[in-house]
């Protein structure tokens, strides 16, 4: 397996885990989630979002610098499902860069 292939498999796994976390918290069928699904249309309230972030941190061993009073400071958008996937991927890359540094 080439390094490229391995990275693709990992990112598919990450995406799958994220979809599981959001679907579970929003109590919706995972198959209905697309990258464009807005968290707001899933009726995700502030505490739900905090729980999602907790699950993301716990699953991927990350720190998401999210402050409910200042959501933009996190550097990760929680507008729609695709934002979350991209944001987590970025944080994982940063985490791994720190580990190898």
């Amino acid at each position, binding site marked *: 397996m080439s390094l490229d292939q391995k990275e693709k498999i990992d990112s598919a796994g990450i995406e799958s885990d994220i979809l599981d976390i959001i679907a579970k918290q929003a109590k919706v069928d995972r198959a209905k989630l697309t990258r464009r699904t807005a968290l707001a249309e899933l009726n995700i309230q*502030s505490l739900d979002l905090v729980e999602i972030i907790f699950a993301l941190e716990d699953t991927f061993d990350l720190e998401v*610098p999210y*402050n*409910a*009073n200042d959501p933009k*400071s996190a550097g990760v958008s929680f507008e729609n499902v695709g934002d979350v996937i991209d944001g987590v991927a970025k944080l994982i890359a940063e985490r791994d860069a720190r580990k190898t540094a």
Partner: protein
Amino acid sequence: MNRVAITGLGAVSALGVDVRAHSEALRAGRCAIGPITNIATEELVTKIAAEVRGFDPASYFESGKLALLDRCAQFALIATREAIAGSGLVFHDELRARAAVVIGAGVGGQVTLDENYYRVYGQGAKRLHPFTIPKLMISAAASHITMELGITGPSFTVASACASANHAIGIAFQMVRAGSVDVAVTGGTEATITFGTMKGWDALRVMAPDTCRPFSHDRKGMVLGEGAAVMVLEGLERAQARGAEILGEIVGFGMSSDAGDIVLPSADGAAAAMRACLADAGLAPGDVNYINAHGTGTAANDVTETKAIHMVMGEHARRLAVSSTKSMHGHALGAAGALELAATVIAIRESFIPPTANFTAPDPQCDLDYVPNEARAQRFDVALSNSFAFGGQNAVLALRR
């Protein structure tokens, strides 16, 4: 029905360990928030708080007694001693039975709980010190006050998160007003700046990384404080008859529940508590000169509280002063209402409005007079002190000069 006078006051917080220090800091608009020093912060997101600094418990308590006192009970006893000394009360046998102790606390002996759980879960300790339970119980501070003063009347602790102290003072006020006791020693205490608790606050994602800026456009959340404030309440006639100095009069108490969200505040619930307080006091909105706001500095509270003040006060909302002293002493949770009523008593006696510190620029959704950064010299007669807790438990006190 008795009118209810405040005849003694004691306060411990990051602003200092007596009322004089509080008066000076409130007047100067001095923010006592800074880097946390009592616990390691490397593993914490939140690295700031308003700690009681330079505090040596051994200078207040002999070692045998200190072994039984969690930090929150220490604060409560120090504030009680100041309040009783100021009141001039002597607890003879008859008065001891006619006095009550009602103390608010959010969580109780958290330092004791945190340290001892770490010992068993983290370090595998096989046994804990036998004083663990009597130190951590939420009612311990109230019990120690009864023991120190010999009070044999009613004593208990009130817990309603961030509204605990206002509920405690309000119930004590009702007891003295109704004549079920002659004197009440009341207030709130809290000491929760522990590693475990801070991890919990970090997880809630509402803590400010910089400082507490209530009502300011760039506010980023709350900052924890700690401490205690205790006051002596007694019937006005009784207080006057013994020639006591009257520090202020509590004239009303209002409560409500949001029956809404476990963390998000409700303007309707907050407004209902303020209206209930005004009705209890027989005050009209136009009588109120100053509101010591709950003002946590979170995005949600400050907008909601502003809306609630508009709902209750109507056009008068723009004529009264509103400030959050949490900007200086932090959010002391179960002690918050007591420290804030203490600040309001000091302000009404010394004729100034304490400022909202750390204020940079207005938020369009927070459009009242928040007395930014500098205390205002102003003689005034009537104030409200708001406490709106997580879980929608609201309590408002009314104070008159």
